[in-house]
């Protein structure tokens, strides 16, 4: 027997009278299930205050976290994608682009900015997963190429923060060729002795991992990020058995020798600052 008896059936409150918590006041961790305020989570470098889970964040958040005084200048932000193939699947590519631009307020899946970390100049190219899964298309490739040229012209180190589902299918072979383009441009920058740091974040897969993400002079990753070439689902379907626990995580890649280190987001800025200081003599030497 219940203690209370329901007198009326169904929910009676009209939608307009419903009291809702303001959007984003609470943060619910999808890793440990804990609920805290969003403010706490943000102040904890966008990590769960309970379990340290690194929440997926966008380029603007990384720029604010990393650049001194949150000051930076966006570069090449006027480049936008073209529907070269007139690609249509269930939706048209044009539609997908429009939706993504409106939803994110961004022009593409990568943003490039120049500023300072611990008073050392640095160019950061950071991907946005919210823009069509952070997929790499011509514009992503072109912005990276231009960022590299900027770094070569100014002898400035480059940091690329990867967060991507891989190459963008709607630009097909054009996306594929961006792998070759970015790798070729990075080889040019390497010849000039300009350091390139690659930070892999959750998730980094496909053509992005198989091009610029893996080519850092220093390869680093945030904890517990998914990093790999083929997606876990594809691998499971191919080999027809379960994948080992921790497969394709940052820790797995570190163990197998593909990362220099894993860095907690709270220490990211200081760590990059230290690297910039250590690499500074190399930048002067050839200037």
């Amino acid at each position, binding site marked *: 027997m219940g203690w209370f008896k329901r007198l009326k059936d169904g929910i009676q409150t009209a939608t307009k009278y419903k009291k809702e918590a303001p959007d984003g006041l609470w943060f619910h961790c999808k890793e440990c299930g804990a609920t805290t305020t969003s403010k706490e989570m943000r102040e904890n470098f966008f990590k769960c205050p309970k379990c340290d889970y690194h929440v997926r964040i966008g380029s603007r958040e990384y720029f604010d976290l990393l650049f001194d005084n*949150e000051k930076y200048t966006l570069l090449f932000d006027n480049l936008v994608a073209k529907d070269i193939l007139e690609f249509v699947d269930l939706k048209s590519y044009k539609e997908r682009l429009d939706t993504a631009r409106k939803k994110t307020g961004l022009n593409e899946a990568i943003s490039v900015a120049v500023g300072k970390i611990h008073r050392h100049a640095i160019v950061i190219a950071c991907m946005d997963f919210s823009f069509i899964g952070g997929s790499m298309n011509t514009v992503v490739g072109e912005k990276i190429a231009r960022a590299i040229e900027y770094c070569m012209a100014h002898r400035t180190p480059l940091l690329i923060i990867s967060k991507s589902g891989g190459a963008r299918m709607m630009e097909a*072979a054009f996306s594929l*060729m961006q*792998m070759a383009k970015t790798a070729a441009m990075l080889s040019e920058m390497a010849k000039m002795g300009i350091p390139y740091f690659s930070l892999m974040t959750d998730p980094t897969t496909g053509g992005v991992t198989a091009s610029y993400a893996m080519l850092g002079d220093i390869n680093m990753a945030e904890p517990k990020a998914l990093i790999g070439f083929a997606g876990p689902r594809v691998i499971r379907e191919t080999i027809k058995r379960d994948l080992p626990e921790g497969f394709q995580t940052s820790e797995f890649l570190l163990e*197998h020798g593909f990362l220099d280190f894993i860095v907690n987001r709270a220490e990211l800025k200081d760590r990059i600052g230290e690297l910039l200081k250590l690499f500074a003599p190399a930048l002067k030497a050839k200037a």
Partner: protein
Amino acid sequence: MVFLEFEKPLEQLYEQLEKIKQVGEQSDIDVTPMVKELEKRIRKTRKEIYSNLSGWQKVQLSRHPERPYTLFYVSHIFKNFIELHGDRLCGDDKAIVGGLANLDGQTVVIVGHQKGVNTKMRQYRNFGMANPEGYRKALRLMKMAERFGFPVFSFIDTPGAYPGIEAEERGQAEAIARNMFEMAQLKVPIVVTVIGEGASGGAIGIGLGDRVYMLENTWYSVISPESCSSILWRSWDYKEQAAEALKLTAEDMFRFGLIDGIIKEPLGGAHTAPEEMAKTLKRHLKQTLQELQQIPVDELVQQRIMKYRRMGEFEELAPVSEKEN
């Protein structure tokens, strides 16, 4: 002979031809005029079918079980091929072959995907899906080529890099990325030919070069039509549409400026006259190599990098005054 589904009219004609020939052998009837007539119809039908192939049909042709693979071309184009094994790190990948050979008097290095010619060999070759060892073996051979000034010929024919646990453990992504990084700077000419399937990272992992050619009935894209269908259409049934949408044929790729040329196949596909195909390919490769060897090597590398630097189309909005945050 293996006929593809769109070759059904041809298959019927060939069956008729067989029957008539049998009749001719078993009786005194002179079947020559009928045979001639049928052969004419076969030629005509073949021309009709092949003059207007869809993207998906080309994908099917590129996977034709009788299609010549890398080692066939190696034996018909080059002499004294010595296969070289192993990446000196971990193992020897059977899905990528490589070695030294002679092209009409010049020593060259060859790398290429290799598919198996029968069920047993297909397994042995892992269906042309390479592991990191394959890419690293190819890189080792290309670096050797650079050391001795030998040009590199690369042949692409893969349904993709192998998606397996060990492949990930040993850094499939790193191996592919490293190859492109190194191939960009390699101080010898690199000539790449897509001879079958050119699927994504698995293809471009040995695919960066001064000249990239595609045989007429091959495809090259970021994903296979089947996988594209399963991801974007959420069903495996839209492979034909996906093949069209991806614009993955040699013609498309050439029109987009993503490859440097198309090499014509015999009517009906490379498998119908493999020797003829090898001859045509040899002519192209030799001519290309001659052209590339006229260019001083530093300039060659610079041209190669600029070629890739320029790839892609996009729009440039009026430059906003540089925002400072």
